[in-house]
């Protein structure tokens, strides 16, 4: 599954840390270090405890540092070299790679496409998912089946759906064939290679693939809204849509904001679908290239590993910047409430 599933944490870290802190203050009988300071066995027990901690955390920490943190740090280092990837990097060129990136019109295009994808993913998926979630939140039969079916595209591999869509959308593919059959042949388009259209095709596919995830999140949020509130409003004579607008939507705010965060980060990192459907060369002429496909095309595929690493650093810094701004201005006011709402209730 893509990064979309696994990026919630930054919002969570602080909240959890605070919780860890809380724990410390409460006396917990079963835990190791409540021996009196005068206890002569204390030293041995401390040693044994440290050993246990090392044995239990060690493997995870080694793998994590070696394959996540170390490569990211190395990217920062390699980014300063002109380097073909063989032997140690020796051709130090300072910020030259970064200057090249920011002067490359191809990168500007990719950055622009990413911006469009970020905004349009929110604009398209948000309202659609919200309507679907409200629809599916109404008691009706067959509800659980519908939920599962909406979620299917999200579970399938990007390669599978990408291959399927690219075959369907070819100019002599199934979609144009279908349009012709129902008498709308005039609407047939070159969905994938028309540069005016391709990014909208991409957005449609993204919406199709990821809207299920948003629906599931929103449904979970809706379950958390106490029914008493809507019942009370009903008794007071509020209409269905008034209730949704005045009660459901505001209470769903935290869920919406966290979903938007995940969607933004996922859009900035978008790679698989574009690379599978358009490939590295066509993506830039069709107007669907992203920063990640630019990175792979001009880094690894071109054999310029120093340059590729510099693009990775830029991509990371942009994502980080967006994440920090978002947390500072959007998530901040409700992080604590959003993340702990259930336990408070």
């Amino acid at each position: 599954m893509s990064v979309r599933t696994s990026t919630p944490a930054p919002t969570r870290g602080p909240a959890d840390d605070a919780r860890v802190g809380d724990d410390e203050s409460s006396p917990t009988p079963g835990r190791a270090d409540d021996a009196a300071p005068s206890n002569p066995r204390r030293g041995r027990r401390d040693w044994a405890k440290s050993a246990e901690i090392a044995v239990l955390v060690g493997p995870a920490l080694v793998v994590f540092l070696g394959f996540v943190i170390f490569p990211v740090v190395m990217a920062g280092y390699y980014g300063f070299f002109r380097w073909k990837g063989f032997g140690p990097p020796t051709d130090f060129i300072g910020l030259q790679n970064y200057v090249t990136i920011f002067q490359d019109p191809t990168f500007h295009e990719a950055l622009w496409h990413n911006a469009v994808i970020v905004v349009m993913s929110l604009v398209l998926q948000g309202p659609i998912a919200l309507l679907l979630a409200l629809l599916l939140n109404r008691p009706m039969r067959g509800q659980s089946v519908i939920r599962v079916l909406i979620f299917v595209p999200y579970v399938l591999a990007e390669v599978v759906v990408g291959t399927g869509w690219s075959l369907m959308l070819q100019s002599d593919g199934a979609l144009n064939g279908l349009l012709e059959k129902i008498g709308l042949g005039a609407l047939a388009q070159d969905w994938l290679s028309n540069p005016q259209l391709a990014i909208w095709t991409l957005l449609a596919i993204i919406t199709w693939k990821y809207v299920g995830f948003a629906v599931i999140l929103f449904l979970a949020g809706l379950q958390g809204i106490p029914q008493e509130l809507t019942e009370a409003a009903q008794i007071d004579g509020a209409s269905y849509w008034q209730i949704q607008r005045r009660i459901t939507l505001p209470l769903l705010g935290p869920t919406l904001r966290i979903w938007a965060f995940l969607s933004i980060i996922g859009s900035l990192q978008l790679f698989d679908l574009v690379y599978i459907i358009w490939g590295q060369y066509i993506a830039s002429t069709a107007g669907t290239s992203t920063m990640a496909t630019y990175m792979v095309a001009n880094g690894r595929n071109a054999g310029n590993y120093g340059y590729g690493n510099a693009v990775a650093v830029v991509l990371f810094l942009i994502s980080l910047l967006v994440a920090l701004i978002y947390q500072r201005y959007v998530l901040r006011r409700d992080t604590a409430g959003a993340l702990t709402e259930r336990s408070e209730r």
Partner: protein
Amino acid sequence: MTASTIAIPRARRPRGNAPLPWGSPAIYFGAFVVIALMLAPILYIIVGGFRTNSQITADPSGLPSPWVTENYAGVLGSTTFWGEVANSTVAAVVTTIGVVALGLMASYVLARYRFRARGVLYAVFAAGLMFPMTVAITPLYIVVRNLGLMNSLAGIILPQIAFALPATIIILVPFLRAIPDEIEEAASIDGCSRLGFFWRMVVPLALPGVITVGILAFIASWNSYILPLFILNNEASFTLPLGVQAFASQYSVDTAKVLAFTSLSMIPALIFFSIFERRIVGGLTGAVKG
């Protein structure tokens, strides 16, 4: 953040055990349209595999007439396909075991031991969520190459474990913290060591959380694309996603066969999903809602 928050979003049922009302036909119609849009592309892939290329050329959006099974039979009879299934399975199973084992051990310490570096350690793992695989892929490739793991499944398994650990730890820590201290106390009175407690009590009690993170890791590995793309260059080591892509470019004129290959490659994910659907959905919402 207790274990109960990792709950499956379910329909709010009316009080009592009365069956759900039918609701209005308009809602069913809306739901039907949505489902049709969501499933049509998938059905196109599956059904298209039952047609011949001349059928597809003549009428790209038609139904098979007659239905042919040669495409599917051809793919199922090829050793390439089964080799890729085997590679994907090994990678996904070992990744899952690794994520669960390492994640559970680390989460146990982070949830139930008190020591000075705990907050820092948790923050380090949580920070991992800021580094999606896409960002790190270029340097990651160099690390894997320097370790001599190119073209081997170990070269994708180890990074997959590493990148799955942050989410795993964030899901598991609250689970483990929710185990009452009284249980640990009772176990210790009965002479159970802390490690013994881990094996005898923690692992069984954390099982729902473990299953959730295991499934997430399995599906992520099964669908993973960018990492195998960088690490696995030789066809014998391809996993299914790479196989689908290679097959699609190799047989680009044989659309029917590509469709058959693609639809067979999604069957394992679909089966897995239909068995564990509740847990997957619950895990994702749990991971986000905390």
